[in-house]
């Protein structure tokens, strides 16, 4: 079939359109890719090359100075470790809670499930807002604790919808009935049948929560005060956007050097902060696409 299709001669108009499309896509590819390459290349260049703007596409005067500075900076290391903790703990908590809610709501025989689902989705449409939520977190005594990074955003409605849709469409009703005849309880069924069958969707949800946690900074900004609890993104904000210097007193020569280092450091930091996500990204890309599509069925 495909062979025959190719033989059909396309009109000039069709070929022109196709050429235009290829050109457009090539342009898009270039526009998206260039900033990424530029930043990676800058991060591997020498401080002088970056400070004088000589990097165009590839690294100039290859050096690892930026990375050396980063990996000896205690603030960044603490941030990195904190972010790792928040990501792992937050993802585990979020995935567990999401399944605990989504699975019961996927069962057709559960009384009241539509009411509960409505109350859950309603929070997507209307929310108390920043200050009222802050007041609750404060009255629970979570301000400036690690819990503030894990609890207030623990369950995302969107992920509940995705998981519920998946359970509804992939766990056949007959399987549930058969297991009940065999005397299998709901919990046993969830644990030994549903969860093993749902590995792909659990992976998708875990990945989405993990990326969200790794990239989050707003909750840290409003709830955390002690620097030793800061996630990487908040540390980055200080260095990258507010330009705060990391150590207090310095000698004049060190000041000049630091000035030169400042931009290089930023490029290297951007790479280091995005690395974990971008490294796993090509491998999990298809899962993400899948998750988005499952959500789209319902959405």
């Amino acid at each position, binding site marked *: 079939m495909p062979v025959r299709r190719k033989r059909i001669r396309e009109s000039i108009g069709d070929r022109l359109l196709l050429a235009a499309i290829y050109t457009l896509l090539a342009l898009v590819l270039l526009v998206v890719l260039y900033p990424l390459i530029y930043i990676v290349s800058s991060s591997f260049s020498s401080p002088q090359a970056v400070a004088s703007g000589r990097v165009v596409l590839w690294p100039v005067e290859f050096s690892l100075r930026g990375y050396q500075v980063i990996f000896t900076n205690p603030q960044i290391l603490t941030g990195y470790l904190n972010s790792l903790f928040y990501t792992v703990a937050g993802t585990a908590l979020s995935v567990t809670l999401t399944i605990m809610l989504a699975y019961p709501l996927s069962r057709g025989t559960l009384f009241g499930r539509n009411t509960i689902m409505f109350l859950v989705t309603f929070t997507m449409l209307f929310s108390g807002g920043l200050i009222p939520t802050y007041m609750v977190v404060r009255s629970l005594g979570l301000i400036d604790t690690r819990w503030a990074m894990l609890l207030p955003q623990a369950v995302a409605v969107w992920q509940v919808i995705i998981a519920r849709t998946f359970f509804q469409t992939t766990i056949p009703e007959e399987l549930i009935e058969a297991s009940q005849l065999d005397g299998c309880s*709901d919990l046993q069924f969830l644990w030994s049948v549903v969860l093993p069958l749902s590995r792909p969707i659990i992976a998708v949800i875990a990945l989405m929560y993990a990326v969200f946690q790794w990239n989050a900074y707003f909750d840290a900004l409003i709830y955390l005060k002690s620097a030793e609890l800061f996630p990487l993104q908040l540390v980055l904000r200080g260095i990258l956007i507010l330009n705060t210097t990391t150590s207090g007193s310095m000698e004049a020569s060190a000041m000049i050097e630091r000035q030169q280092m400042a931009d290089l450091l930023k490029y290297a930091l951007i790479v280091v902060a995005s690395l974990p996500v971008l490294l796993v990204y090509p491998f999990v890309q298809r899962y993400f696409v899948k998750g988005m599509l499952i959500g*789209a069925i319902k959405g």
Partner: protein
Amino acid sequence: MHGVQNRSLTSNAAVPPVQRRARLRAARTSLRRHWQLYLLMVLPLLYFVVFKYIPMTNIVMAFKEYNVVAGVWGSPWVGTKHFEAFFNNPQFWTLLKNTFYLSLYGLAVGFPVPIILALCLNEIRDGLFKRSVQLVTYAPYFISTVVMVSMILLLLAPRLGVVNQLLVALGQPPVNFLGRPDLFRTIYVWSDVWQYAGYSAIIYLAALAGVDPTLYEAARIDGASRWQKIVYIDIPGLMPAALIILILSLGNLMFVGFEKVFLLQNPLNLSTSEVIATYVYKVGLLNANFGFATAVGLFNSVINFVLLLSVNAIVRRWSGRGLW
């Protein structure tokens, strides 16, 4: 079977006594059969009560003069004082305008671009080129807001930024991009497109993949051109998905991404970059003016909610489908 029965029962607003008894019985049966499932839901539902619904009750602060000692419920009522203060605030119209323009501009660009991208991707053959374009355009989605904003600051920097170096090389004067209020919205919107267009195109690609292949067969037999195929088959094919996304974005019009606006703000571009969300943060958390900030936030949420309901109603009437 039970599920069907339950659904038809819950949807009845006024329940006659006989049905109410049947409903109660259904509830009891379900509770006995599925007590483990109900138990499972307790913790996640507690989360929604504590972090979503209790904050909603805290909205009463918008009508109170909050003081720490008395707490939310003990503080004295002040009626609509905060709202009046906000409406009479000289900043009110600026905030409203900034929020609205930024969202509208974002929508006008951010809505069609992924559709065009998906249509283009759909036209080309599967192969290395197509896969590379997809891999590369999805990638920026995973970059955090903080990193995204630092990239913007670095690339658009007044002296060393790559864009300004290009301008100088072309004989143009350099531009202080982030210091110019008139450029703020453009920077915000187009960097968003750069970051999200590829990812948003996925939904449309899926919609296009779901188009009935016999339509294409018929079009080919009728001698339709590529362009006609796009206009008469592809675009109608992704319309349902596009409509839903349009409703959702219009319904979120008043909620611009606080995180990115806040990070891109500086004293020079504040006249166009101060939106309601950043204002609430500053007044509420930095100046601890809780009651007033809650009122402003509530104003924003209500406008948004009304917007969502009306857009949904309009689309429903017009095309027969909506969110609900």
